[in-house]
């Protein structure tokens, strides 16, 4: 996959814009003045060594943490300080590093939970099964089946999530996230536990999701081969600060990035070779 031309990325509208995000926990600054954008229809990655603040930053975007300072805009809405369910409703869907499905619900029910905020039927309508409620449930069920088929697990709709294989659970998480009708899909270490072939197929899958669902994708990923293949732009965090941003090729050759990953001493030999 080749990276998108830079002009397209610049000219397109932004799905997400985070300005100078800072969060402090007590005396510790976990994220420090990070600017971050996701252009519409792009695939961008967030990388960094362990403890760099990636997941914290993720959690700020999704409304789980409220930043000490800085604003998050989703499209043209300011979502800073909104509770997670509102941010999710406005189009930010995510998967989890450690799979977090509703284990004792079927795959179909899992997906339908994410439709909650788009459904309308209330208590009275549900108790008396009003025609509108029936229609809504039926449509929801059909949509859930479509999404399960889309991610490649059409046959497990009636299985409890806990009984699915690891790979199917990861797929189900994506299907569930897509049920939110997101503008942006956040994938938190989606290839964890996958072998190289599976990871390679994952790259294609990401592009298929992006194209068919018309959304942008933000990845947190450890597997550099995946990051370099899939991303149109990579942002590197280290110790809560953004230390580099650019195309995968830029990042590969960035001195500070190499230092962040290998440590300064590790790069001394590298430097003298030059």
């Amino acid at each position, binding site marked *: 996959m080749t990276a998108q031309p830079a002009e397209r990325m610049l000219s397109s509208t932004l799905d997400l814009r985070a300005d100078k995000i800072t969060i402090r926990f007590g005396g510790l600054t976990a994220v420090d003045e990070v600017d971050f954008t996701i252009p519409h229809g792009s695939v961008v990655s967030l990388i960094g060594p362990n403890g760099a603040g990636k997941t914290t930053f993720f959690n700020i975007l*999704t409304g*789980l943490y409220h930043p000490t300072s800085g604003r998050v805009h989703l499209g043209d809405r300011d979502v800073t300080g909104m*509770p*997670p*369910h*509102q941010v*999710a*409703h406005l189009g930010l869907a*995510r998967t989890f590093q450690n799979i*977090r499905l*509703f*284990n*004792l*619900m*079927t795959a179909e*029910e899992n997906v*339908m*939970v*994410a439709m*909650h*905020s*788009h*459904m309308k*039927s209330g*208590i009275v309508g*549900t*108790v*008396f*099964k009003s025609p509108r*409620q029936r229609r*809504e*449930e039926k449509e929801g069920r059909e949509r859930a089946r479509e999404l399960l088929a889309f991610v*490649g697990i059409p*046959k*497990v709709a*009636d*299985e*409890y999530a*806990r*009984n*699915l*294989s*690891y*790979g*199917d*659970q*990861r*797929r189900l998480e*994506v299907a*569930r*996230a897509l*049920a*939110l009708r997101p503008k942006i899909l956040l994938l938190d270490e*989606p290839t964890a536990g996958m*072998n190289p*072939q*599976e990871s390679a*197929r*994952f790259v294609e*899958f990401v592009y298929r999701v992006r194209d068919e669902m018309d959304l942008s994708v933000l990845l947190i990923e450890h597997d550099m081969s995946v990051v370099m293949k899939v991303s149109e732009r990579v942002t590197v965090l280290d110790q809560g600060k953004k230390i580099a941003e650019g195309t995968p090729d830029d990042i590969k050759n960035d001195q500070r990035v190499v230092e962040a990953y290998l440590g300064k001493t590790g790069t001394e030999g590298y430097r003298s070779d030059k």
Partner: protein
Amino acid sequence: MAATTTPSPVTGPSVKDAAEHARRSNRKWALGLLIAVVVLFLLYWKILPAVGGDTASFFRKWLSVSAASEMVLWVIFALGLNIVVGYAGLLDLGYVAFWAIGGYVAGWFMSPFASEMMNDKSWANLKFNFLGHPPAIQGLDRGIHLNFWLVLPIAGLICAFFGVLIGAPTLRLKSDYLALVTLGFGEIIPQIFRNGERLGPGGNFNLSNGDKGITPVDTIPTWPFSYIPGVPDQLGLRAEDLPFKFLVYCLLAAAIVFLSLRIREGRLGRAWLAIREDELAASMMGVPLMRTKLAAYAVGAFAGGIGGVAFATFVNGIYASRFDFAISIILLAMVVLGGMGNVWGVTVGALVLAWINSTGLEQFGNTFNDAVGTNINFKNYQFLLFGLILVLMMLFRREGLIPETRTKQVLAEPERGELEAVGADLEGEQA
């Protein structure tokens, strides 16, 4: 993504069958209980008075019509609590508050008490009757008298409102703390009623008549069924009314069963389940935690309000001293014993415990004492027995008597991920 495109192996019967199975079992349970209700009703109404003798006295002892009625009333409350605890997974130790509020709504709107609510007697001449049925005794038509069937939804809604009011500040807490705060409210509200005789400026307002309680409560009108020969048009305290009252309470319990089953299947029920499973993930999937939990509180409290009104007609009054903490605990025991989240399990759990509570233990004690010649007061050991039952359940049958299919799964089988983590290969194997 992962290469496994083979359909996941199924542990136990497939869920599709399970869903069909659940529907069928719902029908079976409903039919079975309906038959039991009809048989009992005919027994109390026609058969026992006709047969008399030993059979009648056996039933009077072991399952009198009022014991059966009381059991059904407990079912209503247990089902209400089940929505909060079993469906949404929120531990509520103060459910008795809604029972009390429901009862006092009956006291305000369907008894002469409203005319005594001002201690300076300024309301003494208050008379308001809307399709109500005050007891046909001189002077008891004072106060507010609404129709029983009208008071039910009013009490339900008032309780739902209080459910939200109590829930709003407390639901921000995590489970253990939530339990403690609900416990507090469960104590506070009955205390307010117990001491609510002289409120307001100058102690002029009498909210609850304090420890004296409120009595009598209006009768239950049976219109339009009163046109059927043999059906009394008012259900009060006469012996011939009691079988019909039993039927009315069964009808209310059936309504709550219906409500529970329907809500479970829809959008809200799914959201409750999701919150019970993983609160954080649910909120990230667009489920508003606060609103969804408040809805569980409101619906649960609604059932409590209905039950509270019905109970007031059952004992013909509202007595503050009845609403003690033990009731919340017994209700919780009913839910746990029956199988949290399963409507039928909770129904059975409530029936069993309520029966032990009202007659079973006492009669067993009498029989035992007669046979052995001892003089043990078994009723005193009621809580010992409940505690024992709970401990034994936790040891041998954690999922309850009739568990929810979902819960049974967790307790019976390890998670597939866990099995794979230790290298077990489940593919194609029936675990």
